[in-house]
């Protein structure tokens, strides 16, 4: 599908819920919706717009908000779905109900950026060790890695 076709499908499927829909590069598009509409957006993307593949989820710290970017793909088009959430209460609905393949991506984002995915069956750490301290998320901007002068130097 071309950008125009997808745009029309999404505008039909998500009436008035689209905050932003752009086409920055050829074969790339960005969709921004409120987090309350996230699951519906996923459903429309999968069932109507033909985005069968979820490539990954990027967690990002914008400074005042936390952002989750879902990268979807279909033949000839790659779409990024942008969701934002508060830093103080970083919760997003899980996409696993629509895309079961998101299981590990959500766990990874939870580990590293600290966004909790509501409805995800299993939020154990995936990539960080068990004894990693609670509430410390390495990919947030306020987390700095200071290498101690240790035995190696």
């Amino acid at each position, binding site marked *: 599908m071309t950008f125009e076709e997808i745009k029309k499908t999404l505008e039909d499927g998500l009436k008035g819920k689209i905050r932003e829909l752009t086409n920055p590069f050829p074969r790339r598009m960005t969709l921004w919706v409120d987090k309350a509409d996230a699951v519906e957006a996923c459903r429309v993307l999968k069932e109507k717009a033909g985005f069968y593949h979820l490539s990954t989820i990027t967690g*990002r710290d914008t400074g005042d908000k936390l952002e989750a970017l879902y990268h979807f*793909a*279909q033949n*000839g088009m790659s779409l990024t779905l942008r969701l934002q959430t508060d830093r103080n209460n970083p919760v997003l609905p899980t996409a696993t109900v629509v895309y079961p393949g998101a299981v*590990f*991506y959500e766990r990874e984002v939870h*580990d590293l950026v600290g966004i909790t995915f509501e409805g995800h069956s299993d939020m154990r750490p*995936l990539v960080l*060790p068990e004894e990693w301290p609670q509430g410390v998320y*390495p990919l947030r901007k306020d987390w700095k890695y200071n290498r101690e002068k240790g035995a190696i130097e």
Partner: protein
Amino acid sequence: MSTFILPVGPQHPALKEPTSFRFMVDGETVVDADLRLGYNHRGIEKGCEERTYIQDLYMLERVCGICSNVHMTVFAQGVEKLMGIEPPKRGLFIRCLMGELERVHSHLLWLGVAGHEVGFDTFFMYTWRDREIVEDILEMISGNRVNYGMQTFGGVRRDLDEMQIKKALEGIAALKARTPYYLNIGATEPTLVARIAGVGKLPKEKALELNAAGPTTRASGVDFDVRKDDPYAGFGEHIPFNIVTDEGGDVLARVVVRAKELMESYNICEFILKNLPAGEIRVKAPRKVPEGEVVSRAEAQRGECIHYIRSNGSDKPDRVKVRAPTLANWPATLYMLRGGYVADIPIVMAAIDPCLSCTDRMAVISDVRKGTEQVMDWEGLRRYGIEFHRKRGIKL
């Protein structure tokens, strides 16, 4: 017999890299499988934010040994988009050639590993011997056997001369003559087929639902290939190729798909070497990158490789996200393992060609305790280690 837990990893002969599986086993049958990653975390994503783009390029090459060139390509072409520059055609062709040669060496390596996992070491010895041919070509072109350092922003770093083209063509012709033999062995040798046919079934619906990538999903009949869907580095407009799919959905189908992809890659390499356009190999790239964000994708040997790059106008990126194909294939792997035999665990796991250092790349393990400013001296660390193991019932 009651169920018990069979640990596979972090250290296990079937795994060439550390990861940890917990299999609930009932006799010889796997009831459930769980996965724990993170033994290879090097904090590369965080590290990228603290380094300049050109430093990141070489750091991202070190995400993985086998698919080093792919990560470099993906990052380079993403940053090129943000910079608004377009590499010259000769540069794109050489970029594509490197990707395909890397695919050849990776697939040959995988065929051997698959043979070894089912105890067919002769297959392993033969394919790895032939893999030397492509390694020699790569070394001749780039100077290195593993991390080639060929890509840069705006093109590639080394050119090919007539002599190299001739030698590369000879090597590829030799490989082209050998590969049908492996396809034949892989698809007909009775004990090998007995071990891989019907094992690790992944139906088409499940492959789509679990977002598998690469040869794993193509062997389930999904024609998902970034080279076709989202052409890059000269694919699509300049370089012709075919997608290989198979309807089998089992390990045998994955062997067949990979062996046929080898043939496809030889054809692509020959096409590039014979039709290499004249001209420059790179254009000059600016040091700073304008603000913006981009998703860059490429078809690695194991599937779709995707980078998300966000720039903030400086010479350092604001966020780099790397997703290597192996992570995309884990949900499908766990699905394939459930209900199978213990004996099939290694080959099913190997069938997605897992690359764990690709998968684990973004957390910093070494500073577990320093993260909380809870600095320990060596003695404290030692006591902590003993305590840690005692809690888990291991005597020291």
